């Protein structure tokens, strides 16, 4: 009797190695994403935590006070090594020739001319954390690290005890309020006067262009402009006087700061953003400082070459641009896909168009930027200017980069995504649905309108979500078509026509590039890069989540249980 050999399935046919490599690939992907998110999140979260101020006295007597910013190991030069005491020489050579040093954020740029200083471990004689050290954030010159000697209220000198002194806090608040009022008057009231003056000048220029310099209309308009200017000038003088009064009041509220070497500087309270005793903070006070910094970051305009202050105009610009882009790209992409899939005869031409659309997604985005600048801004915008804004010329209105042109450029960049997704969604609508509708006597358009489009809507939304994510993170083309380093004027304000799509704007993505790599103070900009990245990711995630929630609500409609 023949023995039956036991049959086993070998590993290869069971697909084990394939499973390992598939799982491994997924794991690597997940690790990279999570690692990136943790890096950004961690750095973003700790940036605004108030840090203690160390006072480091070096062996040669130099005293440095500042926040420990980061630390690293380095290889000291041989001559530097030779000058060290034997004990340190032994330590360093035991460590393969590496020594350790710390970067301190010393602030006081107005006094020192530098913001950061390296201190090597081997040159330290002592490190202390004195309670009276204060971290002062100012409107100008960056932070001040040192002590507060005294302060004046309405010209009367007071001795300084603590930043939590009610008198101190009160005078700070009063000065800041006054400062904000000045800013408001300059922006709103004086801004309105400037706007009226400019409007008047432009109206006269328009009449000049229409009727000529000799015409009676022009002369009359010129006269009325002069009288209007006089009235406006009177208003302006009144506001200027008001501002001047407040400024001189603010000049009486000052505080005197002393850096660790003893040099003094005096600033007005109105320039003081916040001051806290860095080495004497309770947990609650730390939390308060932390959140007040976040609030400032989210709601204020940037200052100090974007390395300080907030990014509100950038948040606003990013969101406005992305939403405008969606408004432009969705109908355009959906209509194109509808024609391609539902109406066009499926032949060689349509295949060619489809391949071309897909290839568009591979064109470098900077090319779209060049196209946007050349076509939208110069050709379209130039024509609009010549037709409707002739009196503004030679200053361009729409004839230069702006919010609208940037949105349209990105819409062009992302339209292939929407077309491809919509085509797939349309193709996925079951044939039985179309036939059911046609059999009821519906026309093709009615079938598309009532059955196909609603049914394809979740798929179309997926395309829009992808387009949104792609568009919101794009920077390169924007640099050509309207994004600027600093644009505190939002595209929406109180002056007619209230929405100014021609204005240049700020963008979080460009802000990251600018702060991180274009700023004088690269070291100070680094944490801001992380915070801004985190913010950009959060913004895109929020917009995507909203879109996904809407999509899922639509989807639920199409997935009833069968039995």
């Amino acid at each position, binding site marked *: 009797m023949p023995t039956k050999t036991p049959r086993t399935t070998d590993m290869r046919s069971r697909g084990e190695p394939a499973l390992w490599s598939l799982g491994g690939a997924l794991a690597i992907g997940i690790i990279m994403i999570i690692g990136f998110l943790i890096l950004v999140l961690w750095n973003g979260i700790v940036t605004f935590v108030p840090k203690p101020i160390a006072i480091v006295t070096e062996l040669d007597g130099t005293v440095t006070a500042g926040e420990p910013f980061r630390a690293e190991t380095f290889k000291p030069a041989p001559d530097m090594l030779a000058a060290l005491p034997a004990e340190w020489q032994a330590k360093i050579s035991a460590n393969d020739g590496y020594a350790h040093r710390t970067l301190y954020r010393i602030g006081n740029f107005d006094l020192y001319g530098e913001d950061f200083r390296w201190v090597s471990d081997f040159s330290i004689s002592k490190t202390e954390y004195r309670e009276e050290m204060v971290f002062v954030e100012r409107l100008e010159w960056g932070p001040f690290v040192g002590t507060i000697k005294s302060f004046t209220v309405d010209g009367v000198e007071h001795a300084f005890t603590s930043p939590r002194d009610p008198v101190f806090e009160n005078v700070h608040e009063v000065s800041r309020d006054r400062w904000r009022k000045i800013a408001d008057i300059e922006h709103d009231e004086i801004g309105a006067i400037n706007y009226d003056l400019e409007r008047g000048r432009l109206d006269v220029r328009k009449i000049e262009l229409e009727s000529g310099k000799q015409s009676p209309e022009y002369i009359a308009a010129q006269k009325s402009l002069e009288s209007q200017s006089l009235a406006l000038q009177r208003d302006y003088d009144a506001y200027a006087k008001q501002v001047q009064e407040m400024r001189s009041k603010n000049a009486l509220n000052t505080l005197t700061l002393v850096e660790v070497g003893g040099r003094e500087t005096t600033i007005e309270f109105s320039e003081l953003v916040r001051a806290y005793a860095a080495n004497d903070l309770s947990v609650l006070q730390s939390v308060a400082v932390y959140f007040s910094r976040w609030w400032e970051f989210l709601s204020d305009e940037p200052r100090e070459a974007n390395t300080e202050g907030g990014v509100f105009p950038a948040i606003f610009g990013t969101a406005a641009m992305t939403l405008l882009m969606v408004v432009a790209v969705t109908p355009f992409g959906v209509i194109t896909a509808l024609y391609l899939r539902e109406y066009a005869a499926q032949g060689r031409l349509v295949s060619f168009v489809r391949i071309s659309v897909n290839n568009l997604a591979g064109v470098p985005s900077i090319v779209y930027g060049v196209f946007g600048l050349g076509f939208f801004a110069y050709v379209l915008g130039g024509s609009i200017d010549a037709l409707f804004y002739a009196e503004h010329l030679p200053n361009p209105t729409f004839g230069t980069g702006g919010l609208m042109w940037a949105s349209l450029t990105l819409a062009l960049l992302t339209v292939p995504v929407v077309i491809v997704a919509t085509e797939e969604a349309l193709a996925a609508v079951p044939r*039985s649905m179309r036939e*059911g509708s*046609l059999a*009821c006597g*519906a026309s093709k358009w009615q079938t598309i309108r*009532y059955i196909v489009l609603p049914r394809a809507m979740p798929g179309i939304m997926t395309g829009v979500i992808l387009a949104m994510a792609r568009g919101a993170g794009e920077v390169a083309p924007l640099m050509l078509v309207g994004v600027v380093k600093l644009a505190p004027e939002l595209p929406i304000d109180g002056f007619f026509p209230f929405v100014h799509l021609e204005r240049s704007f700020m963008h979080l993505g460009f802000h990251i590039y600018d702060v991180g790599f274009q700023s004088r103070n690269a070291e100070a900009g680094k944490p801001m890069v992380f915070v801004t990245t985190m913010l950009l990711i959060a913004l895109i995630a929020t917009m995507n989540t909203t879109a996904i929630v809407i999509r899922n609500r639509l989807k639920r409609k199409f*997935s009833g*249980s069968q039995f």
Partner: protein
Amino acid sequence: MNVDATPVARLDDDFEKTVYHIKTSDGPILDIKDLCLWYSQTQALFNVDMSIEKGMVTALIGPSGCGKSTLLRSVNRMNDLVDGLKITGRIKLHGDDIYDRSADVIALRKRMGMVFQKPNPFPMSIFENVIYPLKVDGVRDKAILEDTCERALKSAALWNEAKDRLNENALGLSGGQQQRLCIARAIAADPEVLLMDEPCSALDPIATAKIEDLINELAGRYSIVIVTHNMQQAARVSDNTAFMYLGRLIEYGDTETVFQTPHSPKTQDYVTGRFG
């Protein structure tokens, strides 16, 4: 897609050439004359001649790929959607040639309701499903719509189950209920002919029985053409039966004759289960 796309075999030389066409009628609602149909190069229907009697239930039976569904879909021009389709011959609905150049396909389809193999309710409420044919017709009067909905659902024996949930999503109904909803939708616009393409093939026996009862009730009010795989079903519900084989109409007569004393040996073989 529910077209029996199996290529039609070449006819053998000894193939039965005679059509046992014993059904004659003085009032046909549909008159099919010499209908041939090609999908690209493949011929799917060969010279079909057939008149469907008004108010009767006509069953189309035959093995897979014999062209029953193709014939049914030719009647309301659903085949227009297929690329590379060619048709010769004539189909007349009440004397109007539906393949005439001037024929309005949309108006034509409004005169015929169609029920498909798998229930295909639209992803909207039950009410909106039923009134869809009126909606595309431009009827906006709420009273008419509600009245039509109730009448159609009652005719489709779904009113009692659905009257309290008219605004719920139709996809929440069971398969049998969905198919009855599709029947309600098909008859909502009061068509002259009701075309049913294997309406029970996706349903369980109980739901099937309900649909069959419904067909018996609707017979007389509508002229029904039903394609079925199931010979018992054809025997139960139909007045007339047509047997098709390889794209040809082999035998057409009243159901009893076709099943009890068929004239063609092919029909005999098929109804007795020798092939199919």
